[in-house]
């Protein structure tokens, strides 16, 4: 097996490493079980070197010998002076960075179970030659051959596979914990060109937290007259609470900051309980966000591009999870916003992809396509029953067994559709064919295997085979995965918009199918049991069958149908039980009776391997 080349995002505050596994980037968890590692190095009094989380935890007790944000000094002749036991040693920024890289390397080796000697490391687009060289040297000191230095925005674009699209212009908006960068890239033939880059080296998520902390402390002072800023313990709790409130407001409209016993005065303990709405939070950080937008504008001007010529935006950095950030960007730039990949990990992921390309791994693995939309067949009542879910990697094959909907049904119609809607008619029809010559049998008895087989080129072969006769019929659909992106996107959006209504519709049809099955089973039981059923019970069942049938023909709603079904199933069970007891007494065989009583179960068993959906007879 070829040696892996890992991808490293060597950040100012945090670093992250990833590796290509089976064609897709995987984030490497560090020894502490975390996916990102603080870029902090410390020398403890005992001479021990600490890197990452541990170094950060002890920073306050050991400020002279703890180094954070060394990235800001890369490529300069800055020297870090460390004094231990009266002896002072000098370290270059490269050496300190190398210590972070060494930890990432060791964690990667533990993860992969083998030596790691090569890496792709990312740097900001604005890094000059000496800063890039310094980063490379840091790698060498750490025992890593840096096979390539790539720009952080380029890595982010690679993670989204934007190099594979046609020629286009991309804006990368990177708002991290403490730094902000904007870059505008042009991609053509897989080559990235940085048109312009700008940023603010002292702006990030920490500033947003600070705004919330200040607000909490100020409100508390107004309420109680107590100044919390002198209370280290209270301030620590405020900081944690502010950060989690900020995170919560990315998914909720309001959050409550609840800090009981935050402090005490002569009158007793004091509690903090404060509501913070998303709107209020957005107002607090509005000027900071506006600053980022000004940088975006300046970068656009510098690149000579107009906001309308930006095809795609890529979001990087944890703070881009804030909905207002996304809103501001999309109001400024009409292009598509890419934010599906974890913004803390997207740069490392892109570096890992570059590593995979350089290792030849990407060439070795033929990149396989996925089915962009779900492939289904139409079953009883017009429901689309999926055989191959969307995003399944191809080539692949899936089978399901179906049955008939009517007694003595001679043929089944197989209608293949594509899309995410619950009803077949709302999806795109790909083709239809018939399997004829099914020997006469009661409904539900014939077993028809339907197999979807998509080859690597996206050609779909659908085969239906009657198990009893081995007769089969098939169809080949050439363009199952050849939809253009906009069509796929449109179909997905449509499915999302109609999700609730489709679900209701499908549920109603499923219940109608079950009702139909219940009537069938009850009538069959009556005729099979014959005189074993006394006439009162018989007319009771017949009555309920009639009622349920009426509900079906009146297009009754879900609740009415369910109630009528329940009544019928109760009386059918009674006759089954009665017949069963009689046959037991007569020590006969009770097969038919059990069939009748178990139909309800069978009808509701809709997600097993043997699905109960049936074909409509359309012969």
């Amino acid at each position, binding site marked *: 097996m070829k040696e892996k080349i890992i991808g490293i995002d060597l950040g100012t505050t945090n670093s992250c490493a990833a590796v290509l596994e089976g064609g897709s980037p995987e984030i490497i968890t560090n020894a502490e079980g975390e996916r990102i590692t603080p870029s902090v190095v410390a020398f403890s009094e005992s001479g021990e070197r600490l890197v990452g989380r541990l170094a950060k935890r002890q920073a306050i*007790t050991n400020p002279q010998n703890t180094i954070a944000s060394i990235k800001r000094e890369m490529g300069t002749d800055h020297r870090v002076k460390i004094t231990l036991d009266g002896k002072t040693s000098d370290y270059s920024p490269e050496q300190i960075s190398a210590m972070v890289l060494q930890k990432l390397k060791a964690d990667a080796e533990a993860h992969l179970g083998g030596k790691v000697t090569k890496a792709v490391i990312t740097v900001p687009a604005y890094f000059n030659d000496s800063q890039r060289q310094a980063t490379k040297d840091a790698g060498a000191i750490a025992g890593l051959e840096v096979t390539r230095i790539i720009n952080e925005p380029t890595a982010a674009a690679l993670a989204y596979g934007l190099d594979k699209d046609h020629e286009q212009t991309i804006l990368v908006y990177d708002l991290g914990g403490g730094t902000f960068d904007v870059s505008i890239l042009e991609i053509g033939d897989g080559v990235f060109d940085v048109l312009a880059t700008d940023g603010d080296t002292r702006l990030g998520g920490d500033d947003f937290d600070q705004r919330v902390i200040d607000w909490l402390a100020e409100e508390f002072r107004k309420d109680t007259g107590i100044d919390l800023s002198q209370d280290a*313990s209270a301030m620590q709790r405020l900081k944690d609470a502010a950060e989690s409130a900020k995170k919560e407001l990315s998914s909720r409209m309001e959050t409550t900051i609840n800090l009981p016993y935050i402090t005490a005065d002569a009158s007793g303990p004091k509690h903090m309980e404060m509501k913070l709405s998303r709107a209020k939070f957005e107002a607090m950080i509005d000027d900071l966000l506006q600053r980022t937008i000004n940088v975006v504008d300046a970068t656009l001007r510098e690149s000579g591009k107009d906001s309308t010529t930006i095809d795609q935006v890529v979001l990087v950095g944890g703070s881009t999870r804030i909905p207002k950030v996304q809103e501001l960007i999309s109001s400024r730039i009409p292009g598509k916003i890419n934010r599906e990949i974890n913004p803390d990990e997207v740069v490392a992921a892109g570096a890992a992809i570059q590593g995979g390309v350089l290792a030849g791994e990407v060439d070795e693995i033929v990149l396989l396509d996925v089915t962009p939309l779900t492939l289904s067949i139409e079953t009883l009542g017009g429901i689309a029953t999926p055989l191959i879910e969307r995003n399944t990697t191809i080539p692949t*094959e899936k089978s399901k067994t179906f049955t008939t909907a009517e007694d003595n049904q001679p043929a089944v119609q197989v209608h293949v559709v594509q899309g995410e809607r619950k009803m077949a008619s709302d999806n795109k029809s790909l083709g239809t064919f018939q399997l004829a010559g099914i020997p006469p049998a009661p409904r539900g008895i014939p077993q028809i295997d339907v197999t979807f087989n998509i080859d690597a080129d996206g050609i779909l072969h659908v085969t239906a085979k009657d198990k009893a006769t081995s007769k089969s019929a098939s169809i080949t659909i050439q363009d199952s995965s050849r939809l253009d992106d906009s069509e796929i996107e449109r179909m997905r959006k449509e499915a999302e918009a109609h999700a609730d209504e489709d679900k209701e519709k499908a549920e109603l049809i499923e219940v109608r199918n079950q009702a139909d099955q219940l009537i069938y089973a009850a009538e069959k039981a009556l005729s099979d049991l014959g005189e074993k059923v006394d006439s009162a019970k018989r007319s009771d069942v017949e009555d309920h069958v009639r009622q349920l049938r009426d509900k079906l023909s009146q297009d009754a709603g879900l609740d009415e149908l369910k109630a009528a079904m329940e009544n019928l199933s109760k009386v059918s069970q009674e006759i089954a039980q009665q017949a069963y007891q009689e046959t037991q007494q007569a020590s006969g065989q009770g097969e038919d009776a059990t069939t009748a009583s178990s139909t309800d179960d069978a009808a509701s068993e809709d997600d097993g391997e043997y699905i109960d959906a049936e074909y409509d007879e359309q012969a």
Partner: protein
Amino acid sequence: MSAKEKKKIKKNPEESTSTDIPVEGTSGTEMELRTTVDRLQRLQAEFENYKKRAQRESAVFADRIEDRVILDFLPLYDNLQRAFHAMSSNHDMDTFVAGIEQIFAQFQQVLEAKDVRPIDAIDQIFNPEWHEAMLSVPSDAAKNTVIEEFMPGYLRNERVLRPSKVSVSQGPQSKEDSE
């Protein structure tokens, strides 16, 4: 019977693959190559689909684990509600506190059952594996000793669940100490 058959089909998808039907004009080796490539691609696709499924399943699994943890803590929530309910009709503070104490003990039991143990901090030598320094202050305590705990830390199965947030002594304030 049918279920078994279906499983067999699922396990050996290439069995019914139509691509191994010979195409006219291809030699045996070419045919073999084609079959092998197809098999390789299918294996790779299966691996990728397996990964996707594993990811989905682990998300579901994580959710179920969370359910179980919540279930363990719900009785405490119920009991707190009972305590407040009782308090609204009987204002005896002693009874209320006794109830709260019992709920606290119950809370400790749940934590113990999960092997959650508090981290020793006060008077211990500061250790960044367990402690997070929030403050460093001059004090009579020996240098690097934890003198105050702002927030207790916890271990679970010997792993740090949360470090204790502490204040650490710089030692007695005198200009020429150490060295």
